[in-house]
């Protein structure tokens, strides 16, 4: 049984040069180009089995975050299909979907509910979430005033509290301090033991090598390697560093 299946997935981003109707009109009159596109993910196909732990590596701008957004359903592929089986918790680009103006408390509820918990369940787990994140003193402060580490702590705590079957993690851990990173790795380790599917994007090759069993290397939107983590990481070290 596969948790994630991608088939011939392509993603184009369209860059809109004009943000207002006036600019559109000007561009139209001057015959300027109005749209450029970026082919961020190219013909990607792979499947990830339930309980697999996969590391995704690649250089800046390779398309890793785009790939996670496609898996999370935040962004839809231009062509191809993405299939998911199981409850998902995404941590994309330094954090979950938090509303900057709302307090930490309110964001815990909002996020927990979006991720599929009931209000009741969030209330039950609230103390655990706050305790794990270690941000009790800041819980009623708007999250826009959080440091990036605090933000990520909260994001990670909410995500794990929903007990997802699929966990997507995009470079989140790098901004936490060492003790929090360690705590997160322990938590992910126990998730792995419980059979949670984990997709981890990281520039920390050591973590990928030790934590993941499988690695996918993305380069300029293309999948250039898919296989054993150790082999993948050493290939990456040779070819891309």
């Amino acid at each position: 049984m596969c948790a994630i299946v991608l088939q011939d997935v392509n993603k184009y981003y369209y860059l809109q040069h004009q943000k207002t109707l006036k600019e559109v009109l000007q561009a139209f009159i001057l015959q300027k180009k109005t749209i450029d596109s970026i082919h961020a993910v190219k013909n990607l196909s792979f499947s990830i089995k339930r309980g697999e732990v996969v590391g995704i590596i690649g250089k800046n701008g390779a398309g890793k975050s785009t790939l996670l957004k496609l898996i999370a359903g935040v962004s839809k592929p231009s062509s191809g299909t993405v299939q998911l089986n199981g409850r998902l918790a995404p941590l994309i680009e330094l954090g979950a979907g938090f509303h900057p103006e709302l307090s930490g408390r309110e964001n815990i509820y909002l996020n927990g509910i979006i991720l599929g918990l009931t209000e009741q369940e969030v209330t039950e787990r609230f103390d655990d979430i706050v305790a794990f994140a270690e941000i009790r003193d800041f819980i009623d402060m708007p999250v826009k005033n959080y440091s990036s580490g605090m933000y990520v702590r909260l994001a990670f705590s909410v995500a794990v509290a929903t007990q997802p079957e699929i966990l997507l993690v995009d470079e989140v851990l790098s901004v936490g301090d060492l003790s929090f990173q360690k705590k997160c790795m322990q938590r992910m380790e126990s998730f792995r033991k419980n059979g949670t599917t984990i997709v981890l994007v990281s520039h920390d090759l050591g973590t990928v090598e030790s934590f993941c069993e499988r690695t996918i290397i993305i380069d300029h939107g293309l999948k250039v390697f898919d296989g054993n983590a150790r082999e993948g990481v050493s290939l990456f070290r040779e070819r891309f560093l």
Partner: protein
Amino acid sequence: MKLLELYRYRELIKHLVLREIKGRYKQSFIGFFWILLNPLFQMLIMSFVFSFVIRTGQLSVPFPIFVFVGLLPWTLFSNSLSSGVNILVDNASLIRKIYFPREILLIATLIAKLVDFAIASMIFIAMMLYYQIPFTWYMLLFVPILLVQTVFTFGLALVLSALNLLYRDVQYMFQLILSLWFYLTPIVYSVDFFPEQYRWIFQINPMSVFINAYRQVLLGGDVFNIPAILLGGGIALVMFFISYGLFKKMEGIVADVV
């Protein structure tokens, strides 16, 4: 069917609605009374000013309550769209990181505005008692009108919020349109004041059709113009499904452009 997916997100809708309402009433009493005071003062000022301009003697009901029955649904419409047009931009940070059907944000805000509307309607009841206008069963016919108005508003909000994402000045343009639209809607005046040759303006303006219908059932002790509301409802529904389709097409790139 996409609409059924929404049922799964009922907890989220509930939470968003409560958040919006609580946020407004958190400043204790003032917040609550603001919902009442705002339309009340508008009504008082309008009926004072326009009673000198308009031949209010031709109306069968006192001018203030005549104005208020137009003002309430208009306020609902205009508040819903003003917050609807910005809803995707306002929630950008949420949208970029996590998936949920984006129309939920709109639904929640529309429901919250309906709650405000219900609260402000208490003033209407007070006015009915004050002017000793009899309550009739016909008044319940306001429900289907409100339903059609809501479908119409939702459809429009879907299109506007999506357009505003692509071109951020849509919100400003729409504010302008809204203020002009107000004057072309019979809120402080009656359609009957106009010569026959101009009345088509009010027949193609859905808000005018709704407000006339509200007045008929609430103040006139009468049935609304059934063909007009049926036609309005049909058009609103078709528009809604087209808008919904467009919105859902846009949804895949919403996160890319916010």
